[in-house]
């Protein structure tokens, strides 16, 4: 058995890593780096789940780690990369509302803000002192940072990554509430995968011309045959 204090500090380090990857996702312009950053963030979460597993010895955490690894580190990044290659988009340099620097500064503010807000909310509860609190702070911050990506980037595919980053925040938070039934976690992941696939496919539709889009749909075997556009 490893020393709980050590694990707790490891977890804290992982928190920092997660936040850093999130910041990277916010500010980078290169799409393939973006996907890598996301995969790395998910990997961090896997490690975090493992660390928590060793701390609390709940088998569900191990399961979460495995599912996360398979879906978020392997399948989804692979899928998005494939799509990216097909639509030949490399960079997303248009920003809406926020420039990368402002986003970074803002996200720092957000973390602080959520910390204060949550400590106010959880003032009188037992949850205030536990890891639950940290999980909540980091999870929510991650969500809001991911959300900043969704509304400040032009390309739909970047938005998807922002959304995924948000989802990571939820997962991070969820890991600290271990008794959540496993089936729920499992279904959520399935749901997520479907959602991501659909969104990505649709994003392709937005980011390319209609004819190409239907052509691709055909190649994905989503529709049986293609007709000429009206």
């Amino acid at each position, binding site marked *: 058995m490893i020393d709980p204090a050590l694990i707790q500090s490891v977890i804290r380090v992982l928190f920092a890593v997660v936040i850093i990857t999130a910041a990277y996702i916010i500010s980078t312009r290169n799409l393939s780096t973006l996907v890598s950053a996301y995969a790395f963030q998910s990997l961090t979460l896997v490690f975090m789940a493992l660390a928590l597993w060793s701390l609390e010895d709940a088998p569900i955490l191990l399961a979460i780690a495995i599912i996360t690894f398979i879906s978020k580190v392997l399948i989804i990044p692979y899928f998005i990369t494939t799509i990216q290659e097909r639509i030949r988009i490399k960079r997303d340099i248009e920003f*809406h*509302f926020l420039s990368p620097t402002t986003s970074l500064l803002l996200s720092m503010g957000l973390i602080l*803000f*959520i910390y*204060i*807000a*949550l400590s*106010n*909310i959880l003032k009188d509860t037992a949850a205030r002192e536990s890891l639950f609190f940290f999980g909540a702070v980091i999870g*929510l911050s991650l969500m*809001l940072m991911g*959300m*900043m990506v*969704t*509304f*400040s980037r*032009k390309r739909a595919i970047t*938005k998807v990554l922002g959304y995924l980053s948000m989802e990571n925040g939820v997962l991070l938070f969820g890991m600290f509430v271990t008794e959540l039934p496993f089936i729920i976690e499992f279904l959520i992941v399935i749901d997520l995968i479907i959602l991501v696939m659909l969104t990505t496919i649709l994003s392709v539709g937005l980011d390319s011309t209609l004819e190409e889009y239907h052509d691709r749909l055909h190649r994905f075997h989503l529709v049986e045959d293609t007709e000429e556009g009206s």
Partner: protein
Amino acid sequence: MIQETLFVIALLVFVAGILIPLATASRDQRIFRIVSHGCTVIGSAALGILALLVLLTGDGLSWTLYQPLPGCSLSVTIDRLAAFFLLLIAAVSACVALYTAEYVEHLEGGSRRNLLCACTNLFILAMALVVVSANTFAFLIFWELMAGCSFLLVMYDYAGPETRKAGIFYFVMTQLSTLFVLLGIVLLYGQTGSFAFTRTGVSLIATLAFIALLIGFSIKAGIIPFHKWLPYAHPASPTPISALMSGVMLKIAVYGLLRFLLDVFSPDLWWGILILILGIVSAVLGIIYALKEYDIKAMLAYSSIENTGIIFTGIGLYVIFASSGQPVIATISLLGALFHALNHAMFKSLLFLTAGSVVHATHTRDIEHMGGLVHRMPCTSALFFVGALAIAALPPLNGFASEILIFISFFSSVAVADPLFKVFLFLCLGLFALTSALSAACFVKAFGSIFLALPRSPESSRAQEVPFLMLLGPALLASACIVLGLFAAQLFLLVGLSVPIPDMFLVGLLLLAMAFLTFAVLYFTASREVRVTGTWGCGTPSLKPAMEYSGHGFSEPIEIIFSTVYRTEMKNERKFFDAKNCIFAEGTADIRLMKIFEEYLYLPVARFSYLAATKISRFQNGCLDTYLLYVFCAVIAIIVYLGWLA
């Protein structure tokens, strides 16, 4: 027992009148419409008999029609007030139905006319049910039903160019009226905890409820400044509908106000003053605007505004006297208001129906294009003449009989209130007198321009008298006008009310006697030679229609005298040859009457709301990023709220 039976019969007959044309909506056959109108007449007759029974015996009827939910039932209570209005509805509806049976056949629209019949029946039924509603819940339901039906009826000729504007005005104003009535009823419900017409004490909520209801009913009654829908809706809708709306629906609003004033509120003095001011202002402005109208139906609509103003004046006086401890005068004012409501229903529907006949015959609503119809449509002109006499409040017809009651209460008011208040009432009296004099001028103009002198357009020189049924309905109304006028005093005695109204029958007899004696004397003494020749035209060989005094010319002096009220606007546009504006090139000058309320009240409000709405709807700018930003901001706001405020 007989009351219940009559009521059920009326209800069933009306329902039949609604369903028969609806079921046959696809078939454009006259027989179904006749049956439907027959149902209206029979149903109205049953209602009328019921109302008379209740009025004479005082034995009311109280009955629950249908109880959808506990606590709110569609119940019926017919007391004397309800019976009075029921009588009004029944009388007008029956006559209008007789008229419509013929009129509808001359309308365009094929089988849409079946819908018109069905909807008319529903409209009448809804009005009757509003009046007999035993609680505010039923009142509200039937009120809305009435509003909905009347809206559909106004939109009958939906393709007409003016109908769109009329429809929008009517719809919006109706909804506004509903808003206020609903607010009032909700407030009362909150106050008393039930939908019954129960008396509330004096409280802020009760006052607010009263204000809300007053505004709601004022809108429906066409009280200035909420009147604007009337002059649009009436010309746009088919004639019988105008007659029903003007003759009956406005009275339903009056009924609503009275019902709440009498049964629910304990009125304060200033309520009365408020109602009185609304009434007087509507009466004066209504008739002043009527004078400048050349669209016959719009003119009648404005005249309706005036008459509702008179009714409101009576109600205002009632509240004033009732709250200052003068029950006798209060009763006179109330009876005046009620009687005027009845009389106005009679003569205004008479006027609308005959005006409809005229429009039917001449294919125009502009009185400047009519003229000379007295020779071509003698019966219609005689009927219109009776209506004009009545509405101008000339003895011995009914318009005078009710106005004199209000005059009497005005006259007796001086002895009772405090000095300043007396002066106020005197000023109101002066304005009230002005109103009735102007309405005489207005109807001289109307009758003169429409029926007298030479035809001013080819259509009106080719006009033909309308068929029998289109004369029968108005004729019944005209005889009602005469009977209600001549026997006013006797009728009041019959229902057991003593009012200081002159014996108009006696006056009528005297008038007849004098006329007869004069005729007799002249017959025996005077020359009986008669020569028919051209009108003297200062030596011009023949009189042209263009030489006649026109309706515009007739009301010109009054327009000049009241020019401050009419607010004409002069526009000069000049163009010059040179830059320094010295050499005049060409220009246009244009004087037009401003529609004050429309231009300063309605349109600015509409424009402002539209502008604001356009601004706000830019919120929905079609950009996903913005939408997500909203979500982001909302989330932040919620977290702030949770962290610091909650």
